[in-house]
C-alpha cells in the first residue's frame, strides 16, 4: 500500500465549492530511462485517478509518463450532501488503491 495524504474539509455549507487535495507515493517510472545496467527500466506509472462522491464520479484524470513522481492532484467540487468521498488510483503492474474521506454538509 502506498501512503497518501488527502485533504478534504471536514465540514462544508451546502452548495459551497470545496477544494480537495491528494498526494500519493508512487515512483512514476517513465519507461524511457536506462537503469544502472544500461537497460531501459520498464514503465511503472499510475494511469488513472478518479474521485467518487457518494458513488457518483465527480472528478477523473488520466496520467502519463511525463507526470512527476508522487503525483499531487487538486480539484474542486460542490458540496451537495453529507457522505463519503472515495479516491481511486490504478496503474501498471496491477497497482490499485482506494482511500476514503468523510464530509459533513451543514445547511
Amino acid at each position, binding site marked *: 500500500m502506498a*501512503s*497518501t*495524504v488527502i*485533504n478534504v474539509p471536514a465540514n462544508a455549507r451546502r452548495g459551497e465549492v470545496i477544494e480537495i*487535495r491528494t*498526494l*500519493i*507515493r508512487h*515512483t*512514476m517510472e517513465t519507461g524511457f530511462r536506462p537503469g544502472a545496467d544500461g537497460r531501459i527500466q520498464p514503465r511503472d506509472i499510475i494511469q488513472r485517478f478518479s474521485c467518487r462522491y457518494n458513488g457518483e464520479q465527480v472528478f477523473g484524470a488520466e496520467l502519463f509518463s511525463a507526470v*512527476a*513522481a*508522487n503525483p*499531487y492532484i487538486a480539484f474542486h467540487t460542490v458540496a451537495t450532501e453529507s457522505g463519503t468521498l472515495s479516491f481511486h488510483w490504478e496503474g501498471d503492474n496491477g497497482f490499485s488503491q482506494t482511500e476514503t474521506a468523510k464530509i459533513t454538509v451543514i445547511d
Partner: protein
Amino acid sequence: MKYSASGRKGIGRIALMAVAAGMLLPVIAASADQGQAPAKDSRRSGFEFMGASTQAMQVNEALNPGMLWVKDGEALWGKAVGKSQLSCAACHGDAAVSMRGVAARYPSFDEGLKRPIGLSQRIKLCRVNKQQAEPLRAESQELLSLEAYIAYQSRGMPLAPPADARLKPFIASGLQRFQQRMGQLDLSCAQCHAERAGQRLGSSLIPQAHPTGYPVYRLEWQGVGSLQRRLRGCMSGVRAEPFAYDAQELAELELYLAVRAAGMKMEGVGVRP
C-alpha cells in the same frame, strides 16, 4: 578633492559613481543601509533562495511530498521488528513528546564509536543493537522514512548542536574539510557556499549550504534524501571520490555545518529544487 577622513572619501566615491551611472544608486544605497546594522544575521536558509511555488510546497503540509515519508515513518515507529520484537515506540514512547528537538541536536558524540554520528546512523545503531534486527541500508526508504518522521518532530525549532567538549576536534576537522579543495575541479565547499553564495552556477542559485531542511524532498531526486546524499552529490560534482555513507569525514562535515547554522530554524521535511 581632498578628504582626510576615509568615511567622507567613501561618500565622495558614491556620489561620483551615482553621477556616472544613475541606475546603480539604489544598489549602493541599499548596501549602505545594511552597513549600518552589522549585527544582523546574514545567514539565509536554502528556503529563501527558492521560488514562491517551491516555498509553498514546503510550508503547506497537504502539498509537501515529504509528508508521505513522515507518514510511513510514523507507521514504522510503532512496528515491532527483529529478535527483540521491540518497536521504536516500545522504548521511546510517543515520538511527538520523546523526539521533540532531538533531530536539532544531531550529529552528536557516540560513546561506542568515540566520534560524532548523524541521526540516520543513530537509527541504524539502535536498530541493530537494541532491536536486534537486520541493519537498514543507507538511503533505504525505511531509514529515510524514520529519519523524516523524527526530523518532523523538530520542525520550527532552532538548530542546537550539543555543547560537548569531546566534539571540538571534530568540528575543527569539519571546518578544515569545508575549506579543503578537492576533486579534479579543485574546489572546496567554501569557495561556492561561503564565498559565492547568492551567485549562480549555471542556471541555479548557489545557497549558503545550511542543513536546515534535512532530510529533504528534492524535486531533482523525485524523492527524499539525506544530507549525506547531498554532500556526496556535491563531491561527485567537483569530480572527487565521495566519502562512503556513515564515514567519519561526512559526520565531521555535517557537524561543522550544524554548528555553522546553529540557531537557524529546522524545516524538516524541507523541499528543495
